């Protein structure tokens, strides 16, 4: 076992992990942050996406030990507890960008990185950015609408 210390959603956290434990296991099992979902466990669906030092990554394909000293943001860290939703979450709410919601945390975090770099994206750019996030409910149309709505909100033009 080894001790891993990292910053999760702005808080310093430590946990004992095995070398073969994945980052998603650390988040879900040790830190009880179950908003990060495991869909495929084979790095295809993107449900486990979190931000690792600001970059969207699939936490089922990163070992917990590799996150030593890193800054991780999960869906729980997007909005303050009790405060307003993050504009991306608010946009998903308004546009019906989710049905069962299983894929939503991963979608939101991929979009978080994408919109920071591309604040005024075209429809096809959103689709390309979400290429690694699968949704088995919505048919994607409302997710793309949510992304564009979120972009408007974050630019202050909504």
């Amino acid at each position, binding site marked *: 076992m080894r001790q891993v210390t990292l910053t999760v959603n702005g808080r310093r956290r430590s946990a004992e992990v095995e070398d073969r434990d994945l980052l998603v296991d650390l988040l879900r099992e040790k830190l009880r942050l179950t908003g990060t979902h495991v869909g495929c466990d084979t790095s295809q669906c*993107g449900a486990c996406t979190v931000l690792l030092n600001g970059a969207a990554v699939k936490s089922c394909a990163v070992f917990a030990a590799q996150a030593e000293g890193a800054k991780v943001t999960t869906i729980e860290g997007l909005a303050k507890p009790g405060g307003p939703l993050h504009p991306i979450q608010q946009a998903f709410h308004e546009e019906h960008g989710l049905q069962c919601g299983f894929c939503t945390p991963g979608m939101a975090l991929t979009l978080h*990185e994408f919109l920071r770099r591309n604040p005024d994206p075209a429809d096809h750019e959103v689709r390309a950015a979400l290429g690694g996030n699968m949704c088995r409910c919505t048919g994607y149309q409302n997710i793309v609408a949510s992304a564009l709505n979120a972009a408007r909100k974050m630019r202050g033009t909504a």
Partner: protein
Amino acid sequence: MIPAPFAYHAPQSLREALRLLRAHEGEARVVAGGMSLIPAMKLRLAQPEHLVDIGGLSELSGVRRTDDGGVAVGACVTYRRLETSRSARAAAPLLAETVAQVGDLQVRNRGTLGGSAAHADPAADAPAALLALDAALRATGGARPRVIPAARFFLDAYETALAPTEILTEILIPKQPPRTGAAYLKFANKASRFAIVGVAAALTLDRRGVCSRARVAVTGAGPRPVRASATERWLTGRQPSQTAIGEAAARASRGMEFIEDVHGSEEYREHLTRVITRRALEEAARRAGA
């Protein structure tokens, strides 16, 4: 899915990484982004006893211009960085265009150029660009540091010229001659985005618009990425007209070995090789100003 147990090492320097590799020779694997190795470990297709993580080494994470006007890319530079960095795009547009087509955003955020080369997945995109650009790969940890031309680096599926104690440190891309146009096109597996067939083409034209140099490299089609030399020979010394490109592309599969899997038969890949080669050549010729 839980990988077989292993010991994780995060060396602080290349020297330390090499020492670990030597100490655990035959039982250790090097990991950088881990986008291929970690899923393989979860499926227990790979069961190294030691994992040496070089992903965090800053000495392997730089992009620099070389004296000859080319670019040297550290083995642990991510696809995302190559795709978004202005200097990398300017120095090696074909490479940037190729790696932008790898997997998805999350994979490109972790996956590295060196990792792709050293893993040598026969369906990986980057090796085609490395062959078409006459790249060379710098390795250290053997009897002496060496530079291996891309054409002699990829030996077979998942097999490279690297020795088990060697680490790939840098990828050298020479400056391309003036009036060179290049393109990477692939017919991708819709789910994984791996290339069923991918073709990187680079054409150089002389003042009269005649093709003075042609580089065409094919990935995905066979057990290893290869140059389509019959196509290159045919085009060199000719104007890259629609007809000449068609003739050249028709020769793309000559002497090539094809694989068969759930995504396509040998015949299908052979056909795709010719079609994608033609399209890549057309685009490369257009970009060269033909």
